[in-house]
Structure formats: C-alpha cells, structure tokens
C-alpha cells in the first residue's frame, strides 16, 4: 500500500465516490430514466401515437420556430455585445455586464409577467395594440419576447470571457495587413470564437426550446396555436394522459441529452471551460 501525503486512503476515496454517485444517480439519473420508461410504458405504438397527434405536431413546430427566431437574435446580440465589451475600454463596462446577466436573476414567471404588464389587454400598451389589432400576449410574438428575455445572456456570457482572453492582437494583425473591419471580423474574429459561439448557441437553444414558466404566462395555452412542447406536456399531464405527456417530454429529454453530449465534446475538444453557466 502506498502512503500519500495529500490524498485520502483508498477506502475513503471509494466511500466518497460511492456517496457522490449514489446522490447523482438518485437525483439526476433516476428522473431521466423515469421519463423514458413512463413514455414507453404502454409500448412503442402508444408512444408514437401520442407524438403523432396534430396538437403535438403543432407544439413541436411552434417550439422549433420560437428557437429559430430567438437563438439568432441572441447570437447577433451576443457577438455585438462582446465585441464592444472586450475590444474597447470604456467606463461602466462591468455595470453593462451585470445588466446583461440580469435576466438570470429574474424568476421565469416574473419574466413573463413583465411582458403581460406591457402588452396585455390591461397593460401599458394594451389599448394601443388593441386599437391597431395587434396581438402580442397570448400569441406567438409574446412567446418570442419572453424567450428572448430568458435566454438573453447565454451567448454573450460565453463569448465575453473567451474574447477577453484572446485579446486584440489577431485583429490588429489583420488590420495592419490591410483588412477592413468586416474582413477582420469574418476571417479572424469569427473563426477564433466559433466553438465558444457554438457552445453558447447550444445552451441558448436548449433553454429556448425548454422554457416553461415565462412562456406559460404569456402563451394563453391555445392548443395548436400557442402551445410549445413544454406547455403541451403540462396540458397532457393535467388531463391524466401520462403516456402522451411523457412521450412529448421524452423528446425534450432527448434534446437535453444531445445538448449535453455536444457540450461535453466541445469542452474536451476545444478546452472550453463550462464555468457556472446556467
């Protein structure tokens, strides 16, 4: 037996690993297994039938559409914000970073509520919207707004530390070689940040597709119209259609697993640290 000054004995190590694994297995793995097992409880036929309903399809399409709108918006914002923040020095920078992170500290329900208060029937702009026959709350625009709010910091907070670390040398080199601003960004900056950007997009997308609280407040739960996948799960569950609920939930769980795998690959391959991301 080897004695080591700065590590625990094998038995202690084994016990600590066992406790940690038991905890993770119980709190993380078991719920995940439950989703798939409940979904397939009555066989693959029932599973497929549950997903093939028109309402489920509508929910899937809406969810994809919401992500397809809000993720690119966050990408553009994230790149612009991190360019301004990391490539220039100006006073008030740390305040700006804090403000960008603000949506993380707001409850999802409150995130939905603020848009109801602005654009709902009794909201600040409610009368004006009604007069112009525009609908935001209980309609797709409201869901997009709430999703963009919830996922607001994802891309920016991934890019800011990365670009801070990379500095400005590469951009200066490109400019000194005659490149203009866009060429510098396109040929030098973007390739430098592409994996970090992809990482941010992954997390942003997972949250955009999976958001429940904020979307629930603004959507109005109109089946086939303003029902996203997580909301559809809730409706089916409350109607005691457990197989249906878990079938749709298992699709979302697959999305989560794909996200985790892709995220881990990016972390190993490109040495991106996950940090305390949300």
């Amino acid at each position, binding site marked *: 037996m080897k004695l080591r*000054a*700065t*590590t625990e004995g094998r038995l202690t190590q084994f016990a*600590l690993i066992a406790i*940690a694994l038991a*905890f993770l297995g119980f709190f*993380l793995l*078991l*719920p995940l297994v439950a*989703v798939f097992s409940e979904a397939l409880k009555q066989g693959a036929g029932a599973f497929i039938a549950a997903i093939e309903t028109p309402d489920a399809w509508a929910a899937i399409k809406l969810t994809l559409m919401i992500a397809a709108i809000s993720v690119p918006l966050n990408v553009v*914002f994230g790149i612009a*914000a991190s360019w*301004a*923040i990391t*490539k*220039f020095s*100006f006073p008030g920078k740390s305040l*700006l970073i*804090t403000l*960008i992170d603000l*949506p993380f*500290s*707001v*409850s999802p*329900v*409150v995130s939905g*509520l*603020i848009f*109801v*208060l*602005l654009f*709902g029937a*009794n909201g600040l702009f409610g009368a004006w919207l009604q007069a112009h026959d525009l609908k935001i709350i209980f309609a797709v625009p409201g869901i997009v707004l709430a999703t963009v*709010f919830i996922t607001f910091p994802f891309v920016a907070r991934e890019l800011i530390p990365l670009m801070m670390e990379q500095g*400005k040398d590469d*951009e200066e080199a490109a*400019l000194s070689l005659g490149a203009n601003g866009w060429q510098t*960004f396109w040929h030098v900056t973007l390739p430098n940040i592409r994996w970090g950007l992809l990482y941010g997009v992954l*997390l942003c997308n*997972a949250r955009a597709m999976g*958001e429940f*609280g904020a979307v*629930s*407040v603004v959507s109005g739960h109109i089946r086939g119209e303003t029902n996203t996948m*997580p*909301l559809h*799960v*809730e409706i089916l569950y409350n109607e005691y259609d457990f197989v249906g*609920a*878990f079938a749709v939930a298992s699709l979302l*769980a697959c*999305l*989560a*697993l794909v996200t*985790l*795998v892709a*995220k881990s690959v990016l972390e190993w391959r490109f040495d991106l*640290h996950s940090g*305390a*991301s949300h």
Partner: protein
Amino acid sequence: MSTTTLSPPRAARRWRKPSVLPGFGLTFGFTLGWLSLIVLIPIAAIFLKAAGMGWSHFLEVGFSSRALSAYRLSFGTAAAAGLVNAVFGLLVAWVLVRYVFPGKAIISALVDLPFALPTAVAGIALTALYAPNGWVGQFLDPLGIKVAFTPLGITIALVFIGLPFVVRSVEPVLADLGKDVEEAAATLGATRSQTFLRVIFPAIAPALLTGFAMAFARGVGEYGSVIFISGNMPGKTEIAPLLIVTQLEQYAYEGATAIAVVMMLVSFTILLGINAVQAAGRKRMGA
C-alpha cells in the same frame, strides 16, 4: 497647416480610449438599444406599475397572509435545497476533480442535466417518482413519509434544479487550488482533516457560497419543476411564483406585480451579495 493634428476617432469619442478596431459605435449602440428594449424597459415597467399602486395597497397585496406563506415556503425550501446542494455539490465537485474512476466523463456531463432538461420534464418525472404509487414513493409511503404534494417534494425538485450551480462554481476553484499548498500543510505536520478544514475549505468557501446563493436564487424563482410535485394548496404548498400565476389568472395584476417586485428585490440583493463576495475574494487573492 496646423501643428496639432487630432485624429478624428479620438475627438469624436472622448469618453472611451481610442482604438484602431472599428465598430464600437455600431456594436455598443446596438447592445445598449437591444438591452434597453428587451430587458431594462420591461423591468422598469414593473417597478413603475408597483410605484403606481401606492404604498399601503402594495403592502396589503404584496404581504397578504397568503403571500407571506408563499414567501416562507419558497425561501424556506430554496434554502433547504441550497444547503443540501452545498454539501453534496461540494462532494461531487471534490470527487470529480480529485479522483479517477470509470465513467467519470459521463458523470461530469450528467451534472449539467438540470441546465439542459426542460423544467416541466423534470417536474413530471419527479412527480412520477415520488407520488405515493411512484417508483420511490411506494417505498416511502408505508413509512409515513410523504414527498409529493408536500414541502419535502418541493425541496427535492429544487435540489435537482440547483445542483449544477454548486458543482460548477466549486469545481474550477478546487482544480486551481494547487497540490502544493496541501503538500505544504502536510510538511508542516497537519493531518488530512486539518488540511481540509484549515487550508482547502477556506479557499473554496467563497465559491461554495456563490454556488449556494445562485442555487438559492434560482430555487426561489423556480416554477416548472415545482408545480407538478407541489400540489399547489394555497397557504400550504403554494410557492410564490405559482401565486403570481394564480393572481394573473384572476386578473389581479396588482397582486401579481407586488409579489413579483418583492421577489425581484430579493433576487437583486442576492445578486449584489454574490458580486460582493466574489469581489472580496478576488481582492484577497490578489488577482
């Protein structure tokens, strides 16, 4: 010809240091505009709405007995879950950083599951597990332990949601903490537990506190994973976010606003606290 040529970029933007890189005006302007439009103005609107209610009315609906018991439940369960996570999150981080065991990479990836799994999915899965006839519930029920539809169930959901916050804040600090300080402690005659308590723990305490605070803040606001398992009985298992939704459904906008403002003030205070802890930590470490 004038003898002092001011280059134009500097003259135009005195308040920031000049740079050869282009695009500051565009990106900064867009950042500020989009931030205001999506985040700042909507958040300001809710405070404006609350201010318009009048102080006594705000207190009346924001601190009604139903609201108070919702706060107690939300903050209490979030604190309990945060504590559980502080203990087990530290253990998980320790095991992941220090030990080698098969499947470690998968376990490490699994820790982020609560970030990736939609909350509603987690909610129904936990309910299925802990309902009296569920996988876990059927063993607990005969023992008289009720999980689903009790504060205990809410706590379990919040443990699920909060775990990665603790693990991911402690992990890098633990990994950064060089073996050499432990070796130094050992050469000075410290036992392993003395080394942990007096050398390692103080070094990771700020990160642990940050992780706890983030898990707590998230737990207080959490909705999707909780509402299925909580049972939602007013005054008993009704969390504050759910109370907001209930008020909204009854068109009680002022009640919803008042409760939201109280929760936001608490969240922002926690956020400021985290920043202060981190700033103090950085200052002390001389980084």
